[in-house]
C-alpha cells in the first residue's frame, strides 16, 4: 500500500449527508472487470439527462477539476461494500476525505487503500468547511498525517486519527503481512477449535 505522509490538493466541498456508494460508484458503471475508475466517480451526478456535463455539479466546476481533498457531511459512503467507491477517489487523486462521519465499511476500505478518512471535532469541522467554501478552490490545502494538521490559506486545524490507523497509513503497511506475523496464533487457534468445536473447522457436504 502506498504510504500516506502528507497530501496537498484542492479541497472540494460536497456538503451533503448520507452520500452512498451507489452515488459514488454506480453499479452500472462497473460492468467491466476493469472499469475506468477515474470516470465512474460520481458518474451520474456529473451528467445531465441529455448526457452533457452538468456545470453545476461541484466536481465539474473549473476550479475543482483536479481535486485532492473531498469535504463532506455525515455517514459518507453508506450502502454497499464495493471498494470501487474508494478506487474512484484514488483514480482522481483524492487521497483525503474530511467527513462529519463515515459509514463503517467505507472507512475500512479507505484505510486499506491509503486514503485518509478524517473526522474533525464539530467546531473544527464547521471552521474547516467555512474555510473551504471561502477559498473556493483558489488555493490548495495540505494534510500532514504525522503532525495531524490541515494547513492552507488562514487555516491551521488539528485532527486526530487513532494511533493504530495512523501507523498503518504512514508506514503503508502490508496489512496481510502484519496479520501473518500471527501465523502461529492462527494455526494454534485452529488446532484448539478443531478439538473444542470441530464443526467449525470442517465444512463438508455430507452427501458427497
Amino acid at each position, binding site marked *: 500500500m502506498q504510504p500516506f505522509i502528507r497530501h496537498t490538493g484542492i479541497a472540494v466541498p460536497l456538503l451533503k449527508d448520507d452520500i452512498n456508494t451507489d452515488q459514488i460508484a454506480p453499479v452500472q458503471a462497473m460492468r467491466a472487470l476493469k472499469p475506468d475508475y477515474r470516470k465512474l466517480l460520481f458518474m*451520474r451526478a456529473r451528467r445531465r439527462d441529455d448526457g452533457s456535463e452538468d456545470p453545476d455539479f461541484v466536481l465539474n466546476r473549473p476550479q475543482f477539476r483536479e481535486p485532492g481533498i473531498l469535504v463532506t457531511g455525515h455517514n459518507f459512503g453508506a*450502502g454497499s461494500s464495493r471498494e470501487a467507491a474508494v478506487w474512484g477517489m484514488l483514480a482522481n487523486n483524492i487521497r483525503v476525505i474530511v467527513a462529519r462521519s463515515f459509514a463503517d465499511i467505507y472507512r475500512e476500505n479507505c484505510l486499506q487503500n491509503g486514503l485518509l478518512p478524517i473526522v474533525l471535532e464539530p467546531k473544527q469541522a464547521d471552521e474547516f468547511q467555512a474555510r473551504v467554501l471561502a477559498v473556493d478552490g483558489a488555493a490548495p490545502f495540505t494534510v500532514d498525517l504525522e503532525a495531524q494538521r490541515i494547513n492552507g490559506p488562514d487555516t491551521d486545524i488539528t485532527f486526530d486519527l487513532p494511533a493504530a490507523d495512523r501507523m498503518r497509513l504512514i508506514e503503508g503497511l502490508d496489512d496481510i503481512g*502484519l496479520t501473518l506475523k500471527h501465523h502461529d496464533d492462527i494455526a494454534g487457534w485452529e488446532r484448539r477449535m478443531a478439538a473444542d468445536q470441530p464443526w467449525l473447522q470442517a465444512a463438508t457436504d455430507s452427501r458427497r
Partner: protein
Amino acid sequence: MPRTLFGKIWDAHLVARRADGRELIYIDRHVLHELHAPHAFEQLEKQNRPVRRPDLTFSMQDHTVATKPGRDDTTNPSGAAFLKAMRDGSRRNGITLFDIDDPEQGISHVVAPELGMVLPGATHAVPDSHASTVGGLGALAFGCGTTELAHILATQVMALQRPKRMRVTLDGRLAPHVTAKDVALRIIAELGVAGARGHVVEYTGAAVRAMPIESRMTLCNLNIEMGGRSGFVAPDDDAFTWIAGRPYAPKGPLWDRALAHWRTLASDDGATFDREHMLDCSTLEPQITWGTDPSQVLDISGRVPDPAALDHGRRPAAESALAYMGLAPGTPLVGLPVDRVFIGSCTNSRLPDLKAAADVVRGRHVAAGVIAMVVPGSSTVKREAEAAGLDRVFRDAGFFWGESGCSMCAGGNGDRGAPGERCVSTTNRNFEHRQGPKVRTHLVSPETAAATAIAGRIADVRRLRSGQA
C-alpha cells in the same frame, strides 16, 4: 460479569491482538461472489500468496447472472467476464463454486444458510454489505471490501476494531399481513440510516421469537440500512430445527455436541449494551418507503410528509427525495399507479416470502401495463416453489418467473427498470438510480408487492385480502 452473546462469540474467535491494536477475529465461513472476488484473487496472485483455507471458503455466482429461463454466460453479456474470472479463480484456488448452472446456485446470503454452511455462534464474512442476513441463525457476520476479502483469503481472519453493542427489543405480536420487512423498515425509520453505525445489533423480544427463521433473516438483512456493523438473533430451538439435516451441518454425535454448545448461546441476564431501542410491534401496519433512503418510511395508510414540517436538518434530503420520486407533500401512497413490481433479493426471496406473495396473487391477475417479476433467491428455493405450484400461481397471474440471482436489487445483471418508472420492490435500497436510471423505488414486503402488482397501484394488502380493494 454478565456477557452479551456478541461478546461470547467475539472472544471465542479472538486469535490475537495485532501490533496496531486491531483484533484478529477468525472467520469460520467465507462466502464470495463474482462481482468482487476476481479482483481479490488477482491481488493475492500478484503477492504470490495462497488461499489459507479453501475448504472453509465458497464461491457463488449471483450478482451478474441473468434471470431469463435457459440463461448462460452470454445472456447478460457484461456479466460473462465476471463469471469466467470467478470460475477460473475458484478452480485455481481449490474453492467450491456454485456456478450459474449448479442446481444449488443462488444469492450467497440465501444459499449459505440453506445448505447449512452457516451455523449458530459461527463467524461469517462476505464481500457484501448484506452479509448479516445469516444473523437470523445466530451467526456473527461481517460485510467487507475487496482488499479485506483478499486478507481473509490469505489469513482466514479479519483485523477488526471491537464494535459497540446495541440491543433492539421487539415486543408484541405482529398483526396479520405485517411482516419482518415492515418491522425492519420501522426500526430504520426510527433510528435513521446511520443509527447503528459502529454497533453490532442483537434483536430480541417476543416478536422476534415468534418469527420463523426466514423472517429473522429479513430482519438481520436490513441491519446495514441503519449502518450496523452486524446484526443477529440469538439462536433457539426453531433455529436448531431449521439447520438440522442440511447438507453442510454437523451430523450424528457431532450434531449432539454442537447442539449442546449452541444452547449456551445467549446474552446473560444483566448483560449491558451501549445502546437500547424498543419497538412495540403490536400496532404496526405494513410499511413502505416514500423517499430515496430506507429511513424515509411511512405506514401504508400514511401520506407523504411535508418537508417544511420536518426538522431543519432533514429538510433538504426530503425535498430532493420528493423531487426524485415525483411526489407532492400530503399525497397518500395507496392508490399511486406503478409500472413495475419486483419480488426477490437477499431481503425477501426465500420460500415463505414467495408463499406469502403467492397467497395474495392466487386466482388474480397482474394489472394491465404492470411488469411484475418474481426472482427466487436460490435455485433450491425455485425448485421447492415449483414443487409447491407457486410458479404456476405467479405465471398464471402474469408474473415473470425467473432463474435465481440478485437481479433487480442492484441491476448488476441487466434487470433494470426504464427511466421514470415507479417500482415497488421487496429489496433493501431505494437509492436514486439503483434499479435503473431515474427509477423510483418503494421498498415493501412481498405481500404488499404482490397486492400492488394486482391492483396496478400501491395497495394495502390487508384490504385486498379482506375483499375491500
